[in-house]
């Protein structure tokens, strides 16, 4: 692809902006800013990644992973306004999902700790975990509001906070995992994911690319499950006082 083709492809964004203007959707400014940001961010990260990949330094790679998790947790925490320690919970839970899955893949020799392998894979894990934590927070807040009476009745019956909130906790974990489960179900039928497509475009044999994609799908389900479990079993505690009373939302 040459630069002119890429430039011409921008006409598609202009179509979107025109449609937004005509239909009075009001997204023209966001589309314009978003497209410019995407170009700048991706160009910048392109240079950064080239430098990091060439340097092949484990410490620098680890710092980048931590920064990725830090940014993802900030975005996820915004969905959890009202949840005590939302930022800390999302950082630790996403980190747990990443460490366990990445650690397993390294242990199984599926990948090696090289920035060119670890960073793209971690990007997918962290991105999916971020969406999962955001959904989880939103669902916990909704659940504790709509099922307040049920939780209180269970407390009155002598349930511990965890027992009283179990339905809400389980619903939240399920909601957080559903997008990942659904996309795993439709892999190859509806979706031809970016990693596999990219590898094929780069000239890797399709069978090899598919193996990588299967690995990524397994890894994402594991990471999202761990992240959601850590986040929910930590976050629910904030809805109760230390005397097992429901806090006012």
């Amino acid at each position, binding site marked *: 692809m040459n630069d002119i083709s890429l430039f011409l492809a921008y006409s598609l964004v202009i179509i979107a902006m025109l449609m937004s203007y005509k239909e009075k959707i009001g997204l023209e400014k966001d589309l314009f800013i978003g497209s410019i940001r995407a170009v700048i961010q991706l160009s910048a990260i392109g240079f950064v990644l080239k430098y990091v990949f060439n340097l092949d330094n484990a410490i620098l790679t680890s710092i980048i992973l931590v920064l990725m998790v830090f940014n993802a947790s900030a975005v996820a925490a915004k969905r959890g306004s009202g949840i005590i320690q939302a930022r800390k919970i999302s950082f630790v839970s996403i980190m747990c999902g990443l460490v366990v899955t990445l650690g397993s893949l390294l242990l199984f020799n599926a990948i090696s700790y090289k920035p060119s392998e670890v960073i793209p894979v971690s990007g997918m894990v962290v991105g999916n975990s971020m969406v999962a934590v955001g959904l989880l927070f939103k669902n916990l807040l909704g659940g504790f509001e709509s099922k307040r*009476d049920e939780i209180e009745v269970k*407390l009155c*019956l*002598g349930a511990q906070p965890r027992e009283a909130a179990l339905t809400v906790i389980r619903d939240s974990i399920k909601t957080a995992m559903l997008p990942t489960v659904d996309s795993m179900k439709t892999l190859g039928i509806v979706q031809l994911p970016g990693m596999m497509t990219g590898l094929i475009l780069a000239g890797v044999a399709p069978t090899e690319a598919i193996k990588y994609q299967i690995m990524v799908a397994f890894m994402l389900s594991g990471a999202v499950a761990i992240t959601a479990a850590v986040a929910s079993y930590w976050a629910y505690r904030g809805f109760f006082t230390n*005397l*097992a009373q429901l806090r006012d939302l």
Partner: protein
Amino acid sequence: MKIIECIDVNLIKRGNTLLEHISFSINEGDIIGILGPSGAGKSSLFRALNMLHTITGGEIRFNDQNILDYKPEELRKQISYVLQKPTLFGNDVLENLYYPYQILKLKPDMLEIKKYLEKVNLPEDILKRKPAELSGGEQQRIALIRSLLLKPRILLLDEVTSALDDENSRIIENLILEERHSKNLTVMFISHNDAQAKRLAKKILYLKKGKVEFFCTVDEFFEAGDRHE
């Protein structure tokens, strides 16, 4: 034997005084009617006794021990609170009646469940019904059984017969009296029904604006005529 003792209890929530200088004690096996106008602090008192609210002053003692010394879940198993809104949960009624056994880590006893259903005039097939299909009165009766299955020492009842007709109210009252006699259960009930209070209570605790206005025997309270009007 003294089972509950409130010593100069105060409860302030979000700047509102809900309970002020509440002091009284009740003995095991007593049935106490809690009367008073709306907003007098009756439900707040129950929430404080059940540790759903933390009192801001004074002390509540259960079994001669400060309630704060108990684990909340242990206290609530012994002082069971049936809320004004019954709130059944889960897919069916049976799930609600299994819940106390689950909390007590006991195997569900279907005979016991069926015995209670019969006592409150409900058919066995209600167990398979969804909570939302039940009338208000049916829900109240299931909520009461659910709390009794915990085998508490004290039962706090917040207007549990408000959605029942006279006949079913009497059935519930008889069950409460029977539980009191057979298990020495202590009962505190909130009611707006003077006739019910006369039938059921041994003593009356009359609250007004968060304070104890009267705490006396039923006869003394009603002999005094309209002093509580």
